[in-house]
Protein backbone atom coordinates (compact mmCIF):
# COMPACT_ATOMS: atom_id res chain seq x y z
CA UNK A 1 0.00 0.00 0.00
CA UNK A 2 1.17 3.47 -0.81
CA UNK A 3 1.24 6.15 1.83
CA UNK A 4 1.32 9.89 1.27
CA UNK A 5 3.47 12.49 2.93
CA UNK A 6 4.10 16.21 2.51
CA UNK A 7 7.40 17.69 1.52
CA UNK A 8 8.26 20.43 3.99
CA UNK A 9 8.07 23.06 1.26
CA UNK A 10 4.54 21.95 0.42
CA UNK A 11 3.68 22.05 4.13
CA UNK A 12 4.84 25.65 4.18
CA UNK A 13 2.56 26.41 1.23
CA UNK A 14 -0.38 24.79 3.00
CA UNK A 15 0.28 26.69 6.20
CA UNK A 16 -0.96 29.88 4.58
CA UNK A 17 -4.21 28.34 3.41
CA UNK A 18 -7.55 28.04 5.22
CA UNK A 19 -8.03 25.00 7.44
CA UNK A 20 -10.80 23.63 5.25
CA UNK A 21 -8.48 23.72 2.24
CA UNK A 22 -5.83 21.81 4.17
CA UNK A 23 -8.41 19.24 5.18
CA UNK A 24 -9.64 19.00 1.59
CA UNK A 25 -6.09 18.31 0.45
CA UNK A 26 -5.69 15.62 3.10
CA UNK A 27 -8.94 13.93 2.06
CA UNK A 28 -7.97 14.16 -1.60
CA UNK A 29 -4.62 12.51 -1.00
CA UNK A 30 -6.29 9.78 1.02
CA UNK A 31 -8.31 9.05 -2.10
CA UNK A 32 -5.23 9.13 -4.32
CA UNK A 33 -3.55 6.31 -2.41
CA UNK A 34 -6.67 4.13 -2.22
CA UNK A 35 -5.91 3.01 -5.74
CA UNK A 36 -2.38 2.16 -6.74
CA UNK A 37 -0.98 5.55 -7.81
CA UNK A 38 1.67 3.89 -9.91
CA UNK A 39 -0.97 2.20 -12.02
CA UNK A 40 -3.42 5.09 -12.19
CA UNK A 41 -4.15 6.40 -15.67
CA UNK A 42 -6.80 8.89 -16.69
CA UNK A 43 -7.06 7.22 -20.07
CA UNK A 44 -5.75 3.92 -21.42
CA UNK A 45 -2.98 5.41 -23.55
CA UNK A 46 -1.73 7.85 -20.97
CA UNK A 47 1.91 7.20 -20.12
CA UNK A 48 2.57 6.35 -16.52
CA UNK A 49 4.31 9.29 -14.96
CA UNK A 50 5.84 9.46 -11.51
CA UNK A 51 4.99 13.15 -11.26
CA UNK A 52 1.32 14.08 -11.38
CA UNK A 53 -0.65 17.28 -11.04
CA UNK A 54 -4.37 17.21 -10.33
CA UNK A 55 -7.01 19.74 -9.28
CA UNK A 56 -8.58 19.34 -5.86
CA UNK A 57 -11.36 21.11 -4.01
CA UNK A 58 -12.92 24.17 -5.58
CA UNK A 59 -9.77 25.94 -6.60
CA UNK A 60 -6.75 23.85 -5.73
CA UNK A 61 -3.93 22.15 -7.55
CA UNK A 62 -1.67 19.52 -6.07
CA UNK A 63 1.49 18.00 -7.51
CA UNK A 64 2.86 14.77 -6.13
CA UNK A 65 5.70 12.41 -6.81
CA UNK A 66 5.01 8.68 -6.90
CA UNK A 67 8.12 6.90 -5.62
CA UNK A 68 7.52 3.20 -5.96
CA UNK A 69 10.65 1.87 -4.19
CA UNK A 70 9.33 3.29 -0.91
CA UNK A 71 5.60 3.04 -1.71
CA UNK A 72 5.61 6.77 -1.19
CA UNK A 73 3.42 9.48 -2.65
CA UNK A 74 5.07 12.78 -1.80
CA UNK A 75 3.14 16.02 -2.15
CA UNK A 76 5.58 18.57 -3.53
CA UNK A 77 3.42 21.55 -4.42
CA UNK A 78 0.04 22.90 -3.42
CA UNK A 79 -1.61 25.89 -5.05
CA UNK A 80 -4.89 27.44 -3.96
CA UNK A 81 -6.50 30.15 -6.04
CA UNK A 82 -9.69 30.62 -4.06
Amino acid at each position, binding site marked *: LFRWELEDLARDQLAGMPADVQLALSDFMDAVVIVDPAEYQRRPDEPQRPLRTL*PFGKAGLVTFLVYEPDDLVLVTRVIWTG
Partner: protein
Amino acid sequence: VADHGRISISCPGARRRALSAALSLPGSAEGQPDLVVTGEARDSGKSHARCPGDCSSTFAGAALALRSSVDPATLKYMTAQHHEPPVPDHPAETPAAIRAALAANASSEVLRQYDAELDAAFAEARETGDLTVLITAVRRWWIEALEWRRDPAGQRAFLARMERYLAEGPPGPAHRITREEFRAQLGV
Protein backbone atom coordinates in the same frame (compact mmCIF):
# COMPACT_ATOMS: atom_id res chain seq x y z
CA VAL B 1 -21.62 33.91 -29.68
CA ALA B 2 -20.81 31.41 -32.38
CA ASP B 3 -17.77 32.17 -34.46
CA HIS B 4 -16.12 29.77 -36.88
CA GLY B 5 -17.24 26.74 -35.01
CA ARG B 6 -16.53 28.13 -31.57
CA ILE B 7 -18.95 29.45 -29.06
CA SER B 8 -18.21 31.58 -26.05
CA ILE B 9 -20.21 33.27 -23.37
CA SER B 10 -19.69 36.40 -21.38
CA CYS B 11 -21.08 36.60 -17.89
CA PRO B 12 -19.61 39.41 -15.77
CA GLY B 13 -20.53 37.64 -12.57
CA ALA B 14 -19.09 34.29 -13.49
CA ARG B 15 -15.59 33.00 -13.98
CA ARG B 16 -16.75 30.86 -16.84
CA ARG B 17 -14.83 27.89 -15.63
CA ALA B 18 -16.30 24.64 -16.79
CA LEU B 19 -18.66 26.09 -19.30
CA SER B 20 -16.15 28.18 -21.18
CA ALA B 21 -13.87 25.19 -21.47
CA ALA B 22 -16.64 23.15 -22.97
CA LEU B 23 -17.65 25.92 -25.33
CA SER B 24 -14.28 26.03 -27.02
CA LEU B 25 -14.65 22.69 -28.73
CA PRO B 26 -13.86 23.17 -32.40
CA GLY B 27 -16.52 22.67 -35.00
CA SER B 28 -17.01 19.34 -36.65
CA ALA B 29 -18.11 20.80 -39.93
CA GLU B 30 -17.39 24.05 -41.67
CA GLY B 31 -19.36 26.80 -40.05
CA GLN B 32 -21.09 24.41 -37.73
CA PRO B 33 -20.20 24.28 -34.07
CA ASP B 34 -20.02 21.01 -32.20
CA LEU B 35 -21.84 22.79 -29.46
CA VAL B 36 -25.14 24.48 -29.97
CA VAL B 37 -26.82 26.77 -27.50
CA THR B 38 -30.17 25.51 -26.47
CA GLY B 39 -30.94 27.69 -23.48
CA GLU B 40 -31.40 27.00 -19.81
CA ALA B 41 -34.68 25.26 -20.33
CA ARG B 42 -34.14 23.16 -23.40
CA ASP B 43 -37.70 22.05 -23.51
CA SER B 44 -39.00 25.60 -23.52
CA GLY B 45 -37.00 26.53 -26.58
CA LYS B 46 -35.48 29.58 -24.89
CA SER B 47 -32.20 30.64 -26.34
CA HIS B 48 -30.96 32.63 -23.38
CA ALA B 49 -30.55 31.86 -19.74
CA ARG B 50 -29.94 33.78 -16.59
CA CYS B 51 -26.89 33.38 -14.41
CA PRO B 52 -27.87 31.07 -11.56
CA GLY B 53 -26.11 33.35 -9.09
CA ASP B 54 -27.10 36.87 -8.20
CA CYS B 55 -25.21 38.78 -10.87
CA SER B 56 -28.37 39.21 -12.92
CA SER B 57 -26.48 38.41 -16.10
CA THR B 58 -28.29 36.93 -19.00
CA PHE B 59 -26.34 34.97 -21.52
CA ALA B 60 -26.70 32.39 -24.15
CA GLY B 61 -25.45 28.95 -23.49
CA ALA B 62 -26.42 28.04 -19.94
CA ALA B 63 -27.44 24.72 -21.31
CA LEU B 64 -25.67 23.10 -24.18
CA ALA B 65 -26.03 20.29 -26.55
CA LEU B 66 -22.91 18.66 -27.89
CA ARG B 67 -24.08 17.78 -31.35
CA SER B 68 -25.00 14.11 -31.50
CA SER B 69 -22.42 13.09 -28.96
CA VAL B 70 -23.46 14.10 -25.46
CA ASP B 71 -26.00 12.38 -23.31
CA PRO B 72 -28.82 14.80 -22.40
CA ALA B 73 -28.51 13.60 -18.83
CA THR B 74 -24.99 14.97 -18.84
CA LEU B 75 -26.14 18.25 -20.28
CA LYS B 76 -28.55 18.70 -17.42
CA TYR B 77 -25.54 19.42 -15.25
CA MET B 78 -23.58 21.44 -17.81
CA THR B 79 -24.95 24.72 -16.58
CA ALA B 80 -23.05 27.87 -15.83
CA GLN B 81 -22.10 28.29 -12.22
CA HIS B 82 -22.00 31.56 -10.41
CA HIS B 83 -18.72 32.63 -8.91
CA GLU B 84 -17.27 35.72 -7.41
CA PRO B 85 -16.38 38.45 -9.91
CA PRO B 86 -13.35 37.60 -12.03
CA VAL B 87 -10.01 39.01 -11.00
CA PRO B 88 -9.05 41.51 -13.72
CA ASP B 89 -5.44 40.35 -13.97
CA HIS B 90 -6.34 36.69 -14.40
CA PRO B 91 -6.44 35.06 -17.82
CA ALA B 92 -9.83 33.77 -18.86
CA GLU B 93 -10.38 30.11 -18.13
CA THR B 94 -10.41 29.16 -21.77
CA PRO B 95 -7.92 27.05 -23.73
CA ALA B 96 -6.78 29.98 -25.87
CA ALA B 97 -6.27 32.38 -22.96
CA ILE B 98 -4.46 29.73 -20.94
CA ARG B 99 -2.16 28.97 -23.85
CA ALA B 100 -1.38 32.65 -24.35
CA ALA B 101 -0.52 33.04 -20.67
CA LEU B 102 1.73 29.99 -20.73
CA ALA B 103 3.40 31.10 -23.95
CA ALA B 104 4.22 34.43 -22.36
CA ASN B 105 5.62 33.06 -19.12
CA ALA B 106 6.46 29.36 -19.22
CA SER B 107 9.01 27.28 -21.08
CA SER B 108 8.40 25.64 -24.44
CA GLU B 109 8.39 22.24 -22.72
CA VAL B 110 5.54 23.33 -20.44
CA LEU B 111 3.67 24.64 -23.46
CA ARG B 112 4.19 21.32 -25.21
CA GLN B 113 2.80 19.46 -22.21
CA TYR B 114 -0.23 21.72 -22.19
CA ASP B 115 -0.92 21.16 -25.88
CA ALA B 116 -0.54 17.41 -25.57
CA GLU B 117 -2.76 17.13 -22.53
CA LEU B 118 -5.45 19.34 -23.97
CA ASP B 119 -5.42 17.51 -27.31
CA ALA B 120 -5.86 14.22 -25.49
CA ALA B 121 -8.68 15.65 -23.38
CA PHE B 122 -10.47 17.01 -26.45
CA ALA B 123 -10.14 13.65 -28.16
CA GLU B 124 -11.54 11.80 -25.19
CA ALA B 125 -14.43 14.24 -24.84
CA ARG B 126 -15.35 13.72 -28.46
CA GLU B 127 -15.02 9.96 -28.20
CA THR B 128 -16.93 9.47 -24.99
CA GLY B 129 -19.23 12.49 -24.88
CA ASP B 130 -18.05 13.04 -21.31
CA LEU B 131 -16.52 16.46 -20.77
CA THR B 132 -15.15 15.74 -17.31
CA VAL B 133 -11.60 15.07 -18.47
CA LEU B 134 -11.61 18.17 -20.64
CA ILE B 135 -12.92 20.39 -17.87
CA THR B 136 -10.40 18.96 -15.43
CA ALA B 137 -7.54 19.57 -17.86
CA VAL B 138 -8.58 23.15 -18.49
CA ARG B 139 -8.93 23.85 -14.77
CA ARG B 140 -5.56 22.31 -14.00
CA TRP B 141 -3.78 24.35 -16.65
CA TRP B 142 -5.63 27.55 -15.81
CA ILE B 143 -4.21 27.35 -12.31
CA GLU B 144 -0.79 26.54 -13.75
CA ALA B 145 -1.05 29.61 -15.98
CA LEU B 146 -1.90 31.78 -12.99
CA GLU B 147 1.16 30.51 -11.16
CA TRP B 148 3.46 31.03 -14.14
CA ARG B 149 2.17 34.56 -14.46
CA ARG B 150 2.48 35.27 -10.74
CA ASP B 151 5.87 33.73 -10.08
CA PRO B 152 7.74 32.40 -13.12
CA ALA B 153 11.03 32.10 -11.25
CA GLY B 154 9.34 30.07 -8.55
CA GLN B 155 7.84 27.76 -11.14
CA ARG B 156 11.20 27.20 -12.81
CA ALA B 157 12.75 26.43 -9.42
CA PHE B 158 9.94 24.00 -8.68
CA LEU B 159 10.44 22.14 -11.97
CA ALA B 160 14.19 21.97 -11.38
CA ARG B 161 13.54 20.48 -7.94
CA MET B 162 11.20 17.90 -9.45
CA GLU B 163 13.79 16.95 -12.05
CA ARG B 164 16.25 16.39 -9.24
CA TYR B 165 13.82 14.21 -7.32
CA LEU B 166 13.04 12.18 -10.42
CA ALA B 167 16.74 11.58 -11.00
CA GLU B 168 17.94 11.12 -7.43
CA GLY B 169 14.88 10.18 -5.45
CA PRO B 170 12.77 12.22 -3.04
CA PRO B 171 14.14 14.17 -0.08
CA GLY B 172 14.80 12.30 3.15
CA PRO B 173 12.40 11.98 6.10
CA ALA B 174 13.82 15.10 7.71
CA HIS B 175 12.22 17.09 4.91
CA ARG B 176 8.88 15.31 4.98
CA ILE B 177 5.77 15.29 7.15
CA THR B 178 3.69 12.15 7.42
CA ARG B 179 -0.04 12.07 6.82
CA GLU B 180 -0.59 11.32 10.49
CA GLU B 181 1.54 14.24 11.63
CA PHE B 182 -0.23 16.57 9.24
CA ARG B 183 -3.71 15.49 10.30
CA ALA B 184 -2.72 15.80 13.95
CA GLN B 185 -1.69 19.38 13.25
CA LEU B 186 -5.11 19.94 11.72
CA GLY B 187 -6.77 18.51 14.81
CA VAL B 188 -8.44 15.62 13.02
